[in-house]
Each structure stands twice: as C-alpha cells, then as structure tokens.
C-alpha cells in the first residue's frame, strides 16, 4: 500500500476535486456566493493576507502560544507521569482525581482564564496547557505501567540504581507512549490556541478570524480558516517526522521501515 504510487496521485486528485467543488458550487448558485465565496476568491484573499505584516504577526502569536503551551504540557506531563507512574501509592492516590480533572473541557475554563489574565498570552496558555497536559500525562502513565516486570527484576538483580532503572528500563518503554502523547497534544494545543484567540480575543490567527467575521469580510475569514487548517497539517506532519526520528530504534518503527 505505502510503496504504491497511485495513493499519492489519488490524494492530489481528491484535493483538486474538493477545490474545484468549492469553486463551482457557489458559481452555479448551489450555495450563496456571499456566504461561501468560490475557491478563487478565497485564494485571492489569502494572497492579500500573506502580504500584510499584521497577518504574520498573528501567525507568530498563535505559534508562540502553541509552542510555549505545548512545551509546558510535555515537560509537566512527562515529569509528573514518570513520578506518579513509578510510585504505586502515588498512582493509587491520584487516579480518581486525574479521571475527574481530565474530562473537563479546556474551553470551560475560559471564564476563569478571562478573570485571571484578561485577554493576554497567559489566558491562552492556561487553556492550551490544560488541554495538552492530560494527553501527555495519561500516555506516560500507561507507558510506565507497560514496563516488563522481568526486565525490571533483571535491573534489580544487576543492582541498577533508581535513576539507572528509569534511564535504561522505564524510559525506553515509556518513550513511544510519550511521543504518541506529544503528537496528540500538539494537535490539541493548536486547537485550543486558536479557540482562545477566537473567543477571548488573545492576539493571534483566531482573533483575526473573529475580526474578519465582525467586519463581514467573508473571503478573508475563509482565507484565515484555510491558514489554520494548513497549520494543523504542518503540526501533524512535523510531529510524525519527530516520532519517526525519536523512535527509529524501536521495533514498531523498524518493522514499518522493513515492510
């Protein structure tokens, strides 16, 4: 499947078909051109946006919030995950609380974020970190639990210290889980960064979308939505590339490469 040439070709054709549909549907009156402009008009608006410094500033703000939030979530999630996961008592004590806190949708914290931080970067970070943190923490907890008891016992009998056990036994088992957590968190962090901008009005792409919407600038609004989509694709591709790099030694990646 992966090595065949036709899937990639089909992918491009599918995208082209989708774009053509977006061009034709409004033109033949299937949907109103005023509310869903044809692809070409959106493309023109996009080119317009690309020429404006304010667009690049907004893109930078979004990426900044995403990157800082994701870093905090990953560092916190991995650190706490390893700690909680390797101390059974701690794990038992926190399990119910984690299960309670984890499903709280980050967007439900918007009123809290606004009260604490107004519209600035910290509001965005609160939402991003809260959403992304659980993704990483849960994966790392699963990873730590997945450590082979025989390997652990072997490490014990070789008198490996606590740190050495974490380094040579726990970490290699946990890493694939942590990387999966990172990939999920990277996507969620972007969603929440743009949501925060859209709703709270923190600087960034989301706020630009809101401004275009309140101004009735429909093509510009769609153009910015397209940018948000492309950003999502880029984040996912980057996360996958990183995953392949970090896990090149892992049997799952090796098997895939051999196939």
């Amino acid at each position: 499947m992966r090595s065949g040439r036709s899937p990639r070709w089909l992918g491009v054709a599918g995208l082209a078909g989708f774009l053509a549909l977006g061009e034709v549907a409004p033109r033949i009156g299937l949907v109103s051109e005023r509310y869903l402009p044809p692809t070409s008009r959106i493309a023109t608006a996009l080119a317009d946006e690309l020429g404006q410094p304010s667009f690049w500033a907004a893109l930078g703000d979004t990426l900044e919030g995403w990157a800082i939030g994701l870093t905090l979530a990953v560092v916190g999630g991995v650190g706490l995950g390893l700690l909680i996961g390797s101390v059974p008592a701690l794990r038992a004590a926190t399990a119910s609380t984690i299960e309670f806190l984890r499903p709280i949708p980050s967007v439900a914290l918007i009123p809290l974020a606004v009260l604490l931080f107004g519209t600035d970067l910290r509001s965005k970070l609160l939402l991003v970190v809260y959403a992304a943190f659980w993704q990483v923490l849960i994966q790392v907890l699963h990873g730590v639990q997945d450590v082979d008891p025989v390997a652990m016992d072997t490490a014990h009998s070789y008198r490996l210290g606590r740190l050495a056990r974490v380094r040579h036994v726990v970490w290699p088992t946990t890493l694939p889980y942590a990387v999966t957590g990172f990939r999920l968190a990277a996507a969620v962090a972007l969603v929440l960064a743009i949501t925060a901008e859209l709703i709270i009005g923190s600087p960034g792409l989301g706020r630009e979308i809101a401004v275009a919407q309140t101004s009735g600038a429909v093509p510009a609004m769609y153009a910015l939505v397209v940018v948000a989509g492309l950003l999502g694709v880029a984040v996912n591709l980057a996360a996958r590339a990183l995953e392949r790099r970090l896990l090149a030694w892992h049997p799952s990646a090796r098997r895939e490469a051999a196939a």
Partner: protein
Amino acid sequence: MRRPLVSLVALALLAAAAGCGSSGDDNGGQASGGGTKQVKVGVIPILDVAPIYLGKEKGFFSKRGIELTLETGQGGAAIVPGVVSGQFQFGFSNVTSLLIAQSRGLALKVVANGVASTGEDKADYSGIVATDDAIKTAADLEGRQVSVNTLKNIGDSTIRASVRKAGGDPSTVKFVELAFPDMPAALEAGRVDAVWVVEPFLSATLGAGGHLVASNYVDTAPDLTVALYFTSEQLAKDDPDLVGKFTEAMGESLAYADAHPDEARQVLTSYTQIDEAVIQKLVLPKWPADINRESVETLATLAVQDGLVTEQPDVAALLPS
C-alpha cells in the same frame, strides 16, 4: 477525600497564576517614571469605537501621559470581567449591559460617552430589516421571529420600543439569538422573519434585498446614547487623576471623530477588515462628547419594564456627576 498530588500541584499553579494576575494589575495603572501611564482599554472591533482608535492616532491620549493599548475581545464577553478584575483600566459597553451589570452589584462607573444613534429615522447605523413585504412597520413584527445579537439586552429592549411606538404588542415578538455576521444569511434563507443589524451588516442586508422596517434606536429616544466607556469604582476612587485625563482625551477624540467623518472612516481600515467600498457607503453613528442622560434613563426604565433587571437601576450612581 485523599490528598492527591495533582490537585496540590493544580492549586499551586492556580495560586501562582493568581499571583501573576495581581502583579500584572499593579503594573497596569502604575506610572512608569516619566508620568506616562500604561492603560489598557477593552473594546470590540466594530465601528462604534472608531473615535478611540482615531484619538490614539492623533495623540490625544499620549499628550496627556496615557499610553493606550486597545484590547479587542469578540462580543465583549471579556470586557466587563476584565475591567472588574483590573486587567483593563477602562472598557466599552452598551448602556443596557452596564445597567444590568450594575443591578447585579458590579461596581462600575461610567467615564465617557461612547456612541450614539444618528437620531434620524431610517438613516441610523442600526435598524430592523425584513425581506417579507408584509412586514412594513414595526407593528407588523407581532408574532414574528426577530433575531438579536444578545437576548435580554439593548437589542430586544429597543425593538420592543419600536413595536410599541408603531402601535403593536411587543410581548408577542419572538426573539432569537444570532451573531450579527450570521444574520444576513439567516434572513435570506428565511430562518427568521426580521433581523436587527448594525453597520456594516445593515448595508449588507439592505444590499441583499432586505428593506428597512424601523430604526429601533431612533424610536427608543431622541439621540439615544447607545454605549459608554466605563471603569471600576475602585480605579475611579484610587486614581481620579488618570480617570479625569482619560475622560478629557476621550471627549476630544469623540468630538474630533464626529467632526471628521472621513478620518473616522479611514481609521476603520486599521482595525477592522470591512471592505473599502462598504466603508465609504455605510452610515456612521454619532459621537457626541456628552452623554444623553435622559436617554440612559429611558433605557433604564425599559430594562425594568422588559424584565431585564428587577430593580430600577441607579442611573445617577452609574453616570459621572
């Protein structure tokens, strides 16, 4: 309950966060040596606030030692809480929202006029638009669905005033909530019978085959004051000097914008994405420097009558003396 580490960490994070928040406040209104004060104002990126952008550009604030940052939040959801918590020193909000906030015990104080109706019937920046020819006057809205951007606020309150003035029964009008940008499409698709829109969506709906049924702001009161700039009672008490300077600068900005509509249109391009052609044609509101107190009283009375608040709001306490 057991004592889980995570909740402890979460608490610690929250405490740290709250700490950051309050330290942020301290920097907010503080003089930074040379007598220049950093001031954040929460506004909505709509044409109503053109004067403050224009005033900033013209240096009306900087010459009074105010370094202005305009924070935009969609629909203004963040503005009142932002001002109350001290994230913003000032905010922009419609009169009815302020009356409701005050009746709920939020300590707010109006510092300057915001925006007013043009006072000219069928030539205001706000209006009720319908596509159905059977809806000729506001009285024909009886039993119909009318969309407003926020329920139980200035929209339905002033539409009821229009219906009442035209001799209809406002209690039979059904209000639905829709965002202004979604209204033209909703009207065209027939999902609502009429929409209440403000510029630039008023031009858009009229251009798309709608007709103007009534000018709700004009029907409510002559030269209705629609929105105001406000601060928290705390700041008004702690730093009357800053508030006084902001009021002065705002007064100058309003007068300037009102006298220079071309420049007001021009400044719209700096903070909105409204199409140039639309900007040149749309109806601008009025920006008088003084608050029309009588019209604020009228909105207060309507707010009680429509059940938006339970007690008659204390207009004198809200408005500057």
